[in-house]
């Protein structure tokens, strides 16, 4: 707005027109005030929403994490750092460590499976790619519980895989596929693969094919071309995929509950328990804050490496 009014002033040289220009300036100011008001009105609901459901809960969470636990789940409003030092107790620290390890494995497997899929998708016709995308998103519209139960059916001792392997005589005794880190990781990979594929696919698809040709033209074979050109240039997509898998993976407790069978516990489960069974809200809050900080750190690294936050949102 102010840009236009400044132009109006500089363009007109003689007195009469200058007043006209001033009028325009006034008019412009009025308009800009009006614009501001309308901007506020338009952003208002969003702002209120963000304050109510994001800002206030986060402040409460941080506040809670410094409070003392009372008897029978009561909260004593007295400042303490005990909740944070407790995290470093071996019993809890192991949970954090195990969570990170499972999250790393899940992320690694997801990227190793998702990247080639993204490459294949980028080579196919747009229409086929659309169909694949929909097929991939389809499980996300089904309740996670249903999906995870079907994994239980597949993986348990008398499940699909074990009975198949025993029937063809490959194994005598059923393999322990369920209720360990293996089943948890498989479940996690299944849940997060679609989120990881899409950003990787989009960065592969955006890659200028003439760069690949240039590399080959200069004497690089397909393998060298992949490692020197394709991979570095699609790394933002890979990192976006990593973040979109790793972050939810640390906090996701449903998979561990269903496929871990209580043998493995992740940070997500621990937090869940603090708020429900153990009724230790301050400690749960402290764990949540630490988890959030780890995630925030990862996003910061991502943007520092040249990643685009919009890619994550998509």
């Amino acid at each position, binding site marked *: 707005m102010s840009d236009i009014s400044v132009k109006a002033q500089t363009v007109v040289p003689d007195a009469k027109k200058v007043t006209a220009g001033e009028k325009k300036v006034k008019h412009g100011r009025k308009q800009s005030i009006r614009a501001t008001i309308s901007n506020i009105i338009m952003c208002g609901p969003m702002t209120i929403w963000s304050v109510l459901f994001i800002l206030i809960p986060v402040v409460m969470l941080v506040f809670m994490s410094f409070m003392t636990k009372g008897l029978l789940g009561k909260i004593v409003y007295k400042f303490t750092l005990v909740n944070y030092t407790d995290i470093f107790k071996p019993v809890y620290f192991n949970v954090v460590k195990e969570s990170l390890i499972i999250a790393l494995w899940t992320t690694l497997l997801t990227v190793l499976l998702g990247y080639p899929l993204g490459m294949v998708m980028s080579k196919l016709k747009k229409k086929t790619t659309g169909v694949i995308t929909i097929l991939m998103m389809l499980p996300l519209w089904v309740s996670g519980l249903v999906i995870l139960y079907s994994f239980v059916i597949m993986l348990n001792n008398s499940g699909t895989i074990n009975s198949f392997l025993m029937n063809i005589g490959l194994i005598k005794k059923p393999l322990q596929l369920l209720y360990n880190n293996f089943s948890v990781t498989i479940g996690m990979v299944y849940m997060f693969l679609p989120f990881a594929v899409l950003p990787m696919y989009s960065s592969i698809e955006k890659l200028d094919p003439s760069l690949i040709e240039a590399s080959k*033209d*200069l004497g690089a074979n397909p393998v060298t071309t992949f490692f*020197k*050109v394709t991979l570095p240039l699609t790394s933002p997509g890979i990192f976006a995929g990593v973040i979109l898998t790793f972050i939810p993976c640390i906090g996701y407790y449903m998979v561990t509950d269903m496929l871990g069978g209580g043998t493995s516990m992740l940070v997500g489960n621990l937090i869940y328990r603090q708020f429900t069974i153990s009724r230790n809200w301050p400690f749960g809050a402290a764990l949540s804050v630490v988890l959030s900080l780890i995630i925030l750190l990862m996003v910061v690294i991502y943007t520092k490496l040249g990643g685009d936050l919009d890619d994550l949102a998509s």
Partner: protein
Amino acid sequence: MAQPIVSMTNVEKWYGSNHVVKNCNLNIEEGEFLTLLGPSGCGKTTTLRMISGFELPSEGMVKVEGENVEKKEPYDRSVNTVFQNYALFPNMNVYDNIAYGLKVKKVPKAEIKERVTQMLKLVQLEGFGKRRITQMSGGQKQRVAIARALINRPKVLLLDEPLGALDMKLRKQMQIELKRLQRKLEITFVYVTHDQEEALTMSDRIAVMSAGVIEQIGTPKEIYLKPRTRFVANFIGESDLFDGIITAESDGVLSIGTEVGTVKGLKENTTIGSVKVNDPVSVCVRPEHVKISTEKPEGFSVQAVVKDKIFVGNLIKEIAVINNGNEIKINSINAADLPEPGSHVYLSWDLKDAVVIPERSEITLDTADKLKEVG
């Protein structure tokens, strides 16, 4: 003559039912600057890509250094390409881009350094090695792309409209630089462009292509002065065409009956094959060879009325309308006694300045003009 460095024999290229290159026969001599010239979509880039190996011919054979390269991948061929949009690696700096070809061939580091430095000097980018590609201007990127291709010491350098993205002034400057570079290095250049002026400026030989067919191969002078087909006549420079039928022949002079009277041309200036009486032909004269006078000259002449007189600096362009309504262009250097618009004039030319092009149905004047606009 030594064997050609690149030879294409009976090459055909189909994309589905689309016939993009038709019976291409092309021999490129070592050390020459050959330009594939034609409007967009004429198959020139496809032809280039069959030499670089990114496309395989549907039929026919491509040889580089006398060896059939059908089974050779682009990375095994002794040719390098300068791409249309440069295709520089954005994740590497200038130095690493230029060094890429040597690095993947595992050349020792010290040698790479020496050769990259040499290349930077050659393309006048000394001290730019550490720069990021995004910090370079269009002209500089162009130089990096050329250096990156040349460092591999290719037998043939393929250039796909390399100057297309540059502004006019820079383009002209780069044209001269490229030509100098080519002479200095004595490397064969195969250059693709739709810009006829660029082709005439730089090339040793030009292959003019249209709709997948090579219409004519020759030196810029041959192409300009002796266009073989109407397409070439129209695409390269300006030309005035008179269509008619040969009515008589005596002592090697053809009389051609046209709508606007009889014009003449030499039989030896026929561009394809030989012609005889009753053959339909076009007589092509360049605007600077058309003589304009208010008095009827000896021999033959065509009557016309001057429509426009345009001063364009180095010459005067006149447009005269002949009886059938066609406009004839005349370029003159001498401004003193040119007739004013509205005057009745006679147009003629020296017989040696006109070429006789036998009629061919595939390419009409209209399509050539359209293609020229598109190009």
